[in-house]
């Protein structure tokens, strides 16, 4: 087979669409902003910083959606994490202990959801709908219905609009790690198999329940890390923060080419999806567009992404 022919028959990677969309949208903003101010590095860094929370959550959500599941508790979990971190810092704990505790709590929540879904075979939508409410309530209760002020003790420098901010690099490293796990390890292959055909996975001796427990635990661990990043920007524990974040996260993953039916998805696609959402939001603010325009543009992008993806699928099938 000639190189050209093999190129043509090669499956177009799922992340290509969102990548192109990202470039196009970015270019449009760069052109229409006065004096091309959208190209300034400060804006670029601001967007990178804003993407961190969304992108880290999207990494975990990608795993969940590939197994055919969904996680609606992400936003509440992020808020709970900011509260736990703030409360611990206020109580005099060191930042390391505060962060470790908050992330451990988040992981435990994920493991619980995983057991419900994986062992007791409850519907993920319903389980996480419940979890979402319980976590939001717990966060508000824990914070006694108000924001918790505290000395961030250096955690506020975790995420800044600067190249030296560790948060941006942590996000990149996590993305690389999850991409490797999903694409190049046995566990990742099993995640795809469970989402594609659970009966087949079981038949081949894969413990589908265990895979799901791990997936929800990892996803919530990542949401916990995202919560720490969120605290770094807020510098307070805010129990009413990140309401509806999970919907942006799901949108990012769907724009990234993962159908909600499971079996497919890519980390790179989800990251581009998250960046796309942030670029639209930042660009709109920068242009002084009202917020309703951002909502509509984001919604249209979701429609277009799904339509383009399904057309791509139909073409590769025939």
């Amino acid at each position: 087979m000639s190189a050209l022919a093999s190129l043509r028959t090669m499956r177009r990677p799922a992340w290509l669409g969102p990548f192109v969309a990202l470039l196009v949208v970015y270019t449009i903003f760069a052109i229409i902003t006065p004096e091309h101010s959208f190209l300034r590095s400060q804006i670029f860094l601001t967007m990178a910083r804003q993407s961190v929370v969304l992108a880290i959550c999207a990494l975990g959500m990608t795993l969940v959606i590939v197994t055919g599941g969904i996680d609606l508790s992400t936003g509440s979990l992020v808020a709970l994490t900011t509260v736990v971190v703030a409360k611990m810092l206020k109580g005099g704990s060191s930042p390391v202990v505060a962060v470790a505790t908050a992330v451990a709590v988040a992981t435990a929540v994920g493991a619980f959801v995983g057991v419900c879904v994986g062992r007791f075979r409850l519907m993920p939508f319903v389980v996480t709908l419940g979890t979402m409410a319980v976590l939001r309530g717990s966060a508000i209760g824990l914070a006694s219905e108000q924001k918790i002020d505290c000395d961030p003790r250096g955690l506020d420098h975790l995420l800044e609009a600067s190249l030296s901010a560790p948060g941006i690099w942590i996000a990149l490293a996590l993305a690389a790690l999850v991409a490797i796990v999903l694409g190049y390890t046995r566990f990742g292959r099993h995640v795809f198999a469970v989402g594609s055909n659970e009966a087949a996975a079981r038949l081949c001796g894969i413990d589908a329940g265990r895979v799901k427990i791990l997936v929800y635990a990892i996803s919530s661990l990542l949401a916990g890390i995202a919560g720490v990043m969120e605290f770094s920007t807020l510098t307070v524990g805010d129990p009413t923060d990140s309401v509806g974040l999970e919907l942006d996260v799901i949108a990012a993953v769907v724009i990234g080419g993962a159908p909600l039916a499971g079996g497919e998805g890519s980390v790179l696609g989800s990251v581009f999806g998250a960046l796309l959402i942030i670029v639209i939001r930042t660009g709109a603010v920068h242009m002084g567009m009202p917020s309703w325009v951002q909502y509509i543009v984001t919604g249209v992008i979701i429609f277009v992404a799904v339509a383009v993806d399904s057309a791509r699928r139909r073409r590769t099938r025939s």
Partner: protein
Amino acid sequence: MNALVVSAIEKSFGPVDVLRGVDLEVHGSEVHAVLGENGAGKSTLMRIVLGLEHADRGTMTVGGKPYAPRNPADARRAGVVMVPQERTLCPHLDVIENIVLGIEPSGPLGVLREKDAVAVATRALALVAGEGRIPIRARAGAMSVADQQLVEIARALAQGGESARVLVLDEPTASLGKSDADRLFERVRALKESGLAVVLVTHFLGDVRDHADRYTVLRDGKVQGSGDPKTAPPEQIVHEMLGRELESVRGEADAAKGGAGYRGEAPGGGAETLLELRTVAGVAKPRAASLTLKRGEILGIAGLVGSGRTELLRAILGLDRVKSGEVVVTAPRGMGLLSEDRGGEGLMLGRSIAENIALSPRGPLFVNPSHTRADGARWISELSVRSSGPDQRVGDLSGGNQQKVQIARLLREDFDVLLVDEPTRGIDVASKAQVLDLLRELAGKGKGIILVSSQLDELVSTCDRIAVLRRGELSASRPATEWDEEKLLLEAAS
């Protein structure tokens, strides 16, 4: 030595006792056929052997050691692998990924070793399919049912690896063409000679006679007989399966329907034309198909796997795009398709029998559940579907009984033209005769039927005319009386 011994296994689902004390002994280096009517419990027994279900009572041993698998991973460790009756590949994964599923070669931290995976998978594939027959990077979901079947067999062999002792094949040839089936049995023989015990569940008594060393018949949850299929007369085996003679079953069915006439009274030249195809071509297949179908006749379509039979039916119905040519439908009550992919598109596995039968684009705006149930119950008795009632989930029926539910839906719709794709796949001898008689009877009542089947004897005995599809091109049809199985095979393979 006995490779697998099953003793006094009992299993019930709710009130239904499926297995009531089944004993089975399978030796190493033997092909052991397990036979029985639809719903006799063959697949259930095999699922217990593989650890997918758990017996209520009874014990098993493998290689003389006690064996109680909690899941398929336990079974694999003991050297027991299976190709189940229903297709179980991951549609999004490619062929290689499917074959090494659960046994992926990997290094430290579970990092996959792609080269080793390719080696394991190609080795297993070479055992079941000729060089290049299966594209190893194709996604399983995009492959034909026959190719998927081959991949599943390769997967079972790869999973068993060197330590395989028992290979269970649950109706492995149901969706294979003749040449693939022949190659499979060649492989089965080689595996057997290397010491493997093979359990073969099938409805093809010819295959049992040619390829099995012993057989065991299940009926009513018990073993009804066993022996050497080469010496046992087929009538005896059938009797053990049915508990009565096949001819009497046919007789009963005929009597019940007021004696449907067989063969003959072919429709006269004046019969109304229901469907006409003028050099129809699809996107890939078919390439050129012309035919006319008249009221009251059965047109058979023969052809090898991959010749485009299913695609032809789909193009006629408009499910696939027609690129050129014309499909002229003059049938007033429309056309219906009996899909070969039962679980995928033929049925709603999660819904009840009654709901499946009642599914229809026409009909009243509001449905009365009690009517639906009563209707379902009527069809259940009409086609003798073995079930606990019209409310049973179709997914819990045995494969053959699922097929009957699919047929019932078409009959209820009362279409003028029936496009029937492999109607007897996975159906036992008695039901097979029943389904074919039913098709004849429907033709007698003025329906037009296009019958696609890999069972050439079935085509010759049931159809009025037969056309052969070869690499997407449909030959002109000729009266069935001019054909026999050999001629059809020659024509299809030439």
